[in-house]
């Protein structure tokens, strides 16, 4: 079963013909060649595939592609500002050692973006809760929390 889905992707109106069993993550990576979102566990545990759908962070590996029809999707690539300038959250991860191997980073940044969209001045506890669905197997959580805290100050 196939269907043409139309949605907003990182601010652009796009459409794609996809198969009914495809998850959003595969469509983003394979059709749109956006390889920021990663497949870690593929089961909604690790958060490496986190993207925003209508502003909320979701695991794109278990989000049926058919369901984004008419919605808005933002990946880590969509945070870039004019002139390929990094978003303050991305800049803060670079400056504060929030990136080690980098595999969890796009998902971490999207969960941070969802948090900071709603809460401009989160406490450390709120930051930790907001990224509790994102696993970092380098275990670099201290710098990640620090990066999000500093990003909140920059925004």
């Amino acid at each position: 079963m196939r269907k043409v889905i139309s949605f907003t992707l990182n601010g652009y109106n796009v459409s794609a013909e996809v198969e009914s069993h495809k998850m959003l993550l595969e469509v983003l990576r394979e059709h749109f060649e956006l390889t920021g979102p990663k497949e870690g566990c593929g089961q909604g545990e690790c958060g490496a595939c986190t993207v925003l759908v209508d502003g909320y962070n979701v695991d794109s590996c278990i989000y049926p592609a058919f369901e984004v029809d008419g919605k808005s999707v933002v990946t880590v690539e969509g945070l870039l500002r004019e002139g390929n300038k990094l978003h303050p959250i991305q800049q803060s991860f670079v400056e504060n050692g929030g990136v080690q191997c980098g595999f969890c980073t796009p998902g971490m940044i999207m969960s941070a973006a969802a948090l900071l969209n709603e809460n401009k001045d989160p406490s450390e506890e709120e930051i930790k809760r907001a990224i509790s669905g994102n696993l970092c197997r380098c275990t670099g959580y201290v710098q990640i929390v620090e990066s999000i805290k500093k990003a909140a100050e920059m925004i």
Partner: protein
Amino acid sequence: MKRFDYYQPESLKEAYQLMEKFKGEALYVAGGTDVIVRIKQRAIEPEALISLRGLKELRGIKDNGGLTLGAGTLFRDIERYPLIAKEYPALHQAASMLANLQIRNVATVGGNLCNAAPSADSAPPLIVLGAMVVLEGPGGKRKMSLEDFFTGPGQTAKEPQEIMREIHIPEKDANTATVFLKIGRVSQDIAIANAAALVTMENKVCKRCRLAVGAVAPVPLRLKGIEEKIEGEEITDDLLQEVEKMVCDAVSPITDVRATKEYRRTVSGVLVKRAIAQAVASLEG
């Protein structure tokens, strides 16, 4: 993963018709955070999924003295509903401890109940709150208490063609408190054991008590016999010790990757004891 067709009906009627067409080869799916994972693990191989996400009539929270939750209401919306945090803290606590944000942004309360995992976090609080569920199918609606809804691990009284529409919570009595507690490796993990308590106190005596535990029996379990033991009594340390022992005897847990049955048995007693104590304390505070 086996491929599947994915239908997005725009009305309940259309959903029933699709289910009829596939004669048991299709599954209803809401947030998909259980169903899709099980398909990916090849634990189930449905021909088709019938998505309930587009059905607006399944969504939303109504404050009508009691509370009516559309079965398609997201855990994120329950977690952030101020009246639930204030009046039904056990439900609020369960909704905010269920998995993580990415899951709560898509997972629905009806999906959690219909998947009927014995560990489902939403079940114990809703059972102690006296929740009734409304099931609707091509033949009409029926209503039953949530504790009767669960029939086994992954099994419910719902017929395959039926859809859970609503969950009704009766109005809260005065001097009543509820608490939900959960033991997991971390709180967003699937529960090793969970428990909810409701107590109504009057002049230091427990007038009404409702207790439920999860992940320690084939279904989320209401502890009727133990409730009766507590009602009409003053809640003392001695009574709580006795309750703890009774819970350990009442449950029938299994050993799995998360914990041994011995650990589950022990910890379920502790959780119930603490939940009662905390509920009583919150009324005194």
